[in-house]
């Protein structure tokens, strides 16, 4: 059931990323919904599922880009693994800390992605991180903040569970 839910989450994220996200692009900078989904999976499920999910969804992304087969799988499995440590972590309870971690995760992902894809020109990779990675991370973090906010409100207004 968990696997099915994850497949659904990443499927929706993947399809939206390749279709509708361009509509909300600002100067060709788009939020990364797949990393956002990976962040949620990592928070809910932990490192192991997040790593596998990151690898799988990265591989599917790679299948769209023949020249970089394995690159997304590598970067996303690493990010999934790293984000898995936030699972049930006390320091990710607030909206802003969550958004900051999401921002760092996207930035780290792009760092890995661009440095490897532009290897051995590390300068060019870092340049791409500054020009593309940083605004993408910022945009994704802001979007994540909004989603966290609404999820938080929904949790607050949920009916009370059975008492102890």
């Amino acid at each position, binding site marked *: 059931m968990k696997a099915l839910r994850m497949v659904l989450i990443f*499927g929706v994220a*993947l*399809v*939206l990323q*390749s*279709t*509708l996200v361009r*509509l909300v692009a600002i100067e060709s900078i788009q939020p990364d919904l797949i990393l956002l989904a990976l962040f949620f999976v990592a928070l809910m499920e*932990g*490192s*192991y599922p997040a*790593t*596998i999910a*990151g*690898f799988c969804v*990265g*591989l*599917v992304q*790679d*299948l*769209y880009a*023949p020249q*970089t*087969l*394995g*690159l997304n*799988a*590598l970067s996303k*499995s*690493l990010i*999934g*693994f790293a984000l*898995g440590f936030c699972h049930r972590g006390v320091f990710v309870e607030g909206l802003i800390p969550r958004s900051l971690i999401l921002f760092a995760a996207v930035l780290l992902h792009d760092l890995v992605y661009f440095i*490897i894809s532009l290897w051995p020109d590390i300068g060019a990779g870092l340049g791409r991180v500054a020009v593309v990675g940083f605004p993408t991370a910022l945009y994704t973090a802001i979007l994540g903040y909004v989603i966290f906010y609404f999820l938080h409100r929904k949790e607050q207004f949920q009916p009370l569970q059975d008492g102890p």
Partner: protein
Amino acid sequence: MARVFFWTDRSRPYITVAVAVIISIVLLTMGPSHQMTVARTVTVTVLAPVQKGISWFHQLGDFLAQNRRLRRLNTELALENQLLREAQLENVRLRQLLSFREREQLSAILLAEVIAREPDRQMNSILIGAGRDRAVRRNMPVVTAHGLVGKVVEVFPRTSLVQLLMDRNCPASAMVQRTRISGLLSYRGGTTFRLENVPWRMDVREGDQVISSGMGDLFPKGLSLGRVIEVRSQERSLFKDITVEPSVDFNSLEEVFVIIGPAEQSQEVSP
């Protein structure tokens, strides 16, 4: 044994990420293979319909906006097309008038626009946009490329009133072009004329062209008046009953020529 399982459970994320990294690096270093091509084809084929569906759903909004825009553009183009078609028809009419002028060798004719019609169903007169300012005089013949229209009956400073042949009080001396038999063409109501005073023995057939005879010094000779569509010889009558269809469509007059040359009259009428 339990410790081994515990160790494995704790190490599982590390082992997983290590395996994932190794596989990814292998994939990065290996070239394109047939299996990858198949996998890529399968992935794209599976996701493409969903992506297409979502894109279509999004494009639906675009289609509506585009539809509105295209309908507005269509209306604008249709109006423009109508104007161009109108200009083309006007061009054709003017060309016909020019060729008529050359054909009839009319040295002094004046082009005038029909600016009003008599607000009566009979439509026996029209107002044209040429008057005293352009040397129009009373009794000048008015024609189109198709034939005789009528005569000027009133002249104003910038306009003139033209009495149409389609008026019982505006008969024209006429003759059958084929046999040169003369008669008097007069309006009989409806859309037809009657050629009167043609003796019953005379040779007049359906389809004969009727032209102005030039008698009476009002209309020049040879202007087309119409075509015989019915000939009847009544008992105890000395004359044939000849029905003529006019060559001019009086309902669609837009430009006419005033012949100011041969038939010019000195008499002038004050408005």
